[in-house]
């Protein structure tokens, strides 16, 4: 599988190896459509995370997917919204969320919101006894 070329449609930002893992899974399913940049918070303070994201924002990326709503990842992404208000941040990233976004033809900001709405429906509980 070749790497996608050009500016990614979004950044996936997570704790430790989360982003690399989930983007790898998305690419295994969606191929080059899963065109995400990967950023980890490993070894970085909040300012360091912001700096890592800043490079992608400078290239025009305006969607960031994060993992924990309470995490340093989301805090850093949210802080960037102060200077880049059009930036869309989506927390609680899951594989259904990334795949929905990857296959959308809508502009990234719209695709991200639509994908977030649909990904909530992907959480199901089956089996067990009450």
């Amino acid at each position: 599988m070749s790497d996608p070329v050009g500016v990614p449609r979004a950044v996936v930002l997570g704790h430790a190896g989360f982003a690399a893992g989930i983007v790898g899974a998305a690419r295994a399913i969606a191929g080059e459509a899963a065109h995400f940049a990967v950023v980890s918070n490993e070894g970085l303070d909040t300012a360091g995370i912001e700096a890592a994201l800043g490079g992608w924002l400078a290239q025009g990326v305006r969607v960031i997917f994060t993992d924990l709503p309470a995490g340093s990842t989301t805090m850093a992404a949210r802080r960037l919204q102060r200077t880049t208000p059009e930036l869309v941040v989506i927390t609680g990233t899951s594989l259904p969320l990334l795949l929905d976004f990857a296959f959308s033809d809508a502009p990234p900001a719209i695709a991200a919101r639509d994908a977030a709405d649909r990904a909530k429906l992907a959480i199901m509980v089956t089996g067990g006894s009450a």
Partner: protein
Amino acid sequence: MPLDLHRIDDRLIHGQVVVGWGQPLELRVIVLVDDEVAGSEWEQDLYRMGVPPDMTVVFCTVADAVAQHATFVADARHAMLLTGDIDTMARLCAELPAIRRVNLGGIHHKPGRHQRLRYVFLADDEEQALRALAGRGVEITAQDLPSARPVPLAELLAGATSA
């Protein structure tokens, strides 16, 4: 003791604090001591967003925290006091002899800092500040999560990087 932990963590409120420590300690209050954050409604909203509904964040300047520390200690709810850097904690400790233990939770890489643990990097002046604190009788250990081994300051400064 309701004020269970005095922690230095440059990420301030984040997953390790809210979940990693918050759940086992049943934390209900985080006292965030940072002069800059205490002066910014926008920053405070950001950090409030990062905690669950049953957890309260109190934002303080160093002066406020000194004035209210006894109140925090007397509060029956489990709490953590959090600073984003060593200097802020050292200023608190200088005014509050009641602080006997300090937890180094996360001080990450910046130019001029040397790695001491996976999650602790220290500049020379920061090491001196920690030694000074320890010299005043404050017990300093590095421990990112409750399940990790607390690393005493002496061991930390001796250069161990295995924790």
